[in-house]
């Protein structure tokens, strides 16, 4: 195909590893491979590297190094936070509050707890994906032991009023966890100021390696272990540390948080250029999520009359990587729970497209997508019985 290029617009799924990050990691595969738990001098470098990374994560969140625990990614951090708090505090109550738009790592952990005697309230969100603070307050009972609400949504990019939620939770003495997997590097986070008790993050969303993450646990929060075994991570999370991964996470979070404003401005500019172009060139298109309170790189739109998986396949033919909330790509009959929670009818959710921009993208990428996407949408619409019906009805 002439003029075809590779355009990666799925940074919310995962990112590439930055060169500076990889370079820091490499020696810990080959030369400094010692087990951080070993006593000899050789292994001390490994131990020190982990503590350096821990300091970097703590600094990025305004936490203490002792409050950072490395995990095998975002899902493990979410599971640990939720199950760990639930089981450690079940003498105080059995009620958990979350939202309908959480990542499955949170939702399925909550559903699991429901099978073990816990009660979970899944808060609704408005058409933009925002939680209603009054509804949150009303959901709190004297049995509530945990509130878990994501910082920023992975599909529609909506950013929640985390500081306000933290304040409510702290006033009521309820533990507050936030899944900040999508927020790191995109939103300034201060766990002290925002009254966050637990926070999950994953390196592969901010140009670090996959399969490594962290859970921030505020000092004094009662939490059970999830992974039982050896005495690593101050006896809180067993398993020989993913040394290169942790080193990479440390470097990546340092880079991602050194200039959040500058990064956001650059990405937002590209995003807005793309979004405005899409809305201008493609009729019957709806923006999903909040117009302002959204991640700088996130676009989520629904094109009426077409289905998302076929859209992705065509984009792929043009070298464009994106994602959709359509049921057809999930293997189930239901489209994305997030799109349903913001009130989209099934057929509109099926036509959703998420483009998540990041450091890989340029203006040329944006212009390329704008040169390809409208034709692809039109091509699928010409094939759609829904479009045919609509056009006939209109005339």
């Amino acid at each position, binding site marked *: 195909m002439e003029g075809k290029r590779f355009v990666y617009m799925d940074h919310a799924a995962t990112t590439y590893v930055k060169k500076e990050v990889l370079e820091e990691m490499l020696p810990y595969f080959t030369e400094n491979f010692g087990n951080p738990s070993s006593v000899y001098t050789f292994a001390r470098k490994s131990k020190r590297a982990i503590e350096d990374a821990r300091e970097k994560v703590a600094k990025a969140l305004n936490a203490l190094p002792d409050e950072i625990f490395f995990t095998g990614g975002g899902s493990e951090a979410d599971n640990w936070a939720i199950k760990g708090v639930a089981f450690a505090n079940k003498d105080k109550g059995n009620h958990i509050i979350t939202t309908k738009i959480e990542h499955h790592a949170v939702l399925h952990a909550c559903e699991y707890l429901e099978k073990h005697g816990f009660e979970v309230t899944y808060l609704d969100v408005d058409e933009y994906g925002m939680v209603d603070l009054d509804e949150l307050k009303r959901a709190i009972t004297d049995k509530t032991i945990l509130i878990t609400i994501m910082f920023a949504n992975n599909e529609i990019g909506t950013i929640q009023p985390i500081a306000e939620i933290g304040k409510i939770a702290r006033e009521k003495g309820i533990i507050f966890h936030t899944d900040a997997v999508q927020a790191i590097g995109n939103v300034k986070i201060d766990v002290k100021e925002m009254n966050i008790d637990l926070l999950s993050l994953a390196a592969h969303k901010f140009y670090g390696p996959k399969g490594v993450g962290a859970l921030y646990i505020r000092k004094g929060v009662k939490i059970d272990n999830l992974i039982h075994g050896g005495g690593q991570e101050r006896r809180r999370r067993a398993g020989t540390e993913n040394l290169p991964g942790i080193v990479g996470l440390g470097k990546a979070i340092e880079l991602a948080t050194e200039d959040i404003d500058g990064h956001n401005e650059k990405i937002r500019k590209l995003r807005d250029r793309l979004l405005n172009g899409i809305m201008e060139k493609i009729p019957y298109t709806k923006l999903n999520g909040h117009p302002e309170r959204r991640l700088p790189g996130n676009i989520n739109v629904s094109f009426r009359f*077409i*289905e998302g998986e*076929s859209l992705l396949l065509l984009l792929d033919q043009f070298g464009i990587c994106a994602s959709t909330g359509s049921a057809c790509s999930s293997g189930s*009959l*239901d489209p994305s729970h997030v799109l349903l929670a913001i009130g989209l009818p099934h*057929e509109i959710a099926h036509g959703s497209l998420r483009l998540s921009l990041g450091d890989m993208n340029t203006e040329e990428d944006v212009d390329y997508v704008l040169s390809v996407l409208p034709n692809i949408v039109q091509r699928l619409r010409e*094939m*759609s*019985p*829904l479009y045919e019906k609509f056009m006939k009805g209109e005339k």
Partner: protein
Amino acid sequence: MEYSDKVMEHFMNPRNVGEISDANGIGEVGNPKCGDMMKIYLKIEDNIIKDVKFKTFGCGAAIASSSMATELIKGKTVEEAWNLTNKAVAEALDGLPAVKMHCSILAEEAIHKAINDYRIKNGLEPWEDKFSKGDHDHHEHHE
């Protein structure tokens, strides 16, 4: 989703997309709620499928199955077209992923509906198929 080359080829270059203005058998099946919908137009002359066109709202497998199914019934007798199974469509496409088999049922179902539309218009008894007996799970919706 890993599709065969044949599926991708039909998806990228679908045969028989469109409408037939003087179609004498039309069938529309599916439900946009489930993510898929197919409309098929037949032009039947002397018991032969002279022309066929389709429109499909659905995934790559749904579009490729529609394309393949219309190719397979073109020029065939009405009876032959009726007997086309979704399995045969999937086989002609060098297979479909297991979770995508239900998309190929759509084409079979739409063809049956269009043929019965033709039969009713011509004063004939509609044929009974497994779909009208409701022994398939295509539209089951898990809320």
